[in-house]
């Protein structure tokens, strides 16, 4: 029996235990999959308190909806769907707090952009300033655009998988990806305008 199959069986036994009223069987699942859920939540929330709230929400939902898990796909896939949708709900709830007003670029961000304009190849994509800038751009995007850009461009997931994760149809994911790229471009234009005009 392969490692994956053995893990799935172990998960299935734990899930059956929880469904039969043995709540402590849920704890090993939390221990095993929390790192992945935390990594996902940190893509969408900056503050650690918000990340913890999202992960808690994911596990509460997982516990309450566990009876709807049919076991056709691995538990991890089902849980990640739940995690992505909870993150999307979080983004929509905090849409008003989005960085709609432009705040001044920090000195390292300014320097990085200057270097990029002078010679694009000299601006390293490993620099902390580049990370700060992409965080800033993502924070300016709408929830839909941020979700699609993260899943498609940053996590490099195929469109079909994104459709399964989000519950959107494949054509809808493509349309939203097109709009998200355009929205991101507008944000970059805005940053460039604010910097050089």
């Amino acid at each position, binding site marked *: 029996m392969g490692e994956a199959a053995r893990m799935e069986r172990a998960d299935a036994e734990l899930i059956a235990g929880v469904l039969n009223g043995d709540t402590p069987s849920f704890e090993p699942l939390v221990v095993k999959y929390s790192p992945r859920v935390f990594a996902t939540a940190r893509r969408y929330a900056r503050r650690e308190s918000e990340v913890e709230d999202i992960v808690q929400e994911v596990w509460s939902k997982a516990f309450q909806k566990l009876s709807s898990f049919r076991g056709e796909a691995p538990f991890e896939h089902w849980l990640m769907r739940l995690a992505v949708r909870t993150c999307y709900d979080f983004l929509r709830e905090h849409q008003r707090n989005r960085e709609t007003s432009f705040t001044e670029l920090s000195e390292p961000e300014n320097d990085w952009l200057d270097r990029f304009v002078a010679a694009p190849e000299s601006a390293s994509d490993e620099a902390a300033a580049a990370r700060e800038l992409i965080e800033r751009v993502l924070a300016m995007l709408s929830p839909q655009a941020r979700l699609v850009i993260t899943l498609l461009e*940053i996590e490099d997931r195929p469109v079909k998988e994104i459709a399964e994760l989000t519950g959107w149809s494949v054509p809808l994911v493509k349309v939203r990806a097109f709009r998200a790229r355009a929205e991101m471009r507008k944000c970059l234009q805005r940053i460039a305008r604010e910097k050089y005009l």
Partner: protein
Amino acid sequence: MLSVVWPTVADMNLDELQKKLLAAARKNPPGDLVPYAFEQRIMARLARAPRLDEWTAWVRPLWYGAGVCVAVAVFMSVWSFEPDADQDLAAYFSQDIEQTILASDDAEILW
């Protein structure tokens, strides 16, 4: 004489910038560190929260549905008891039709 040329928005290759920034995000995936004893916190929270069984999940929407049905029933009964001007009009209209159709009979009697 040395002249300084300031870059403009047009100088910025936005496609390249987009690619660079996305590459930066790809190269720096978020950490998967879990806070200490986080699982205990989750288990304590689950123990505190009331378990939502299947019956409870069904009963709540059914109560909402029952409320809506009662409201519709009350509205319909009030509406049906209210004297309606349209109803009187309908009565006159049916009388008019009857007179028109039976007009020929009345004429025969007169002759």
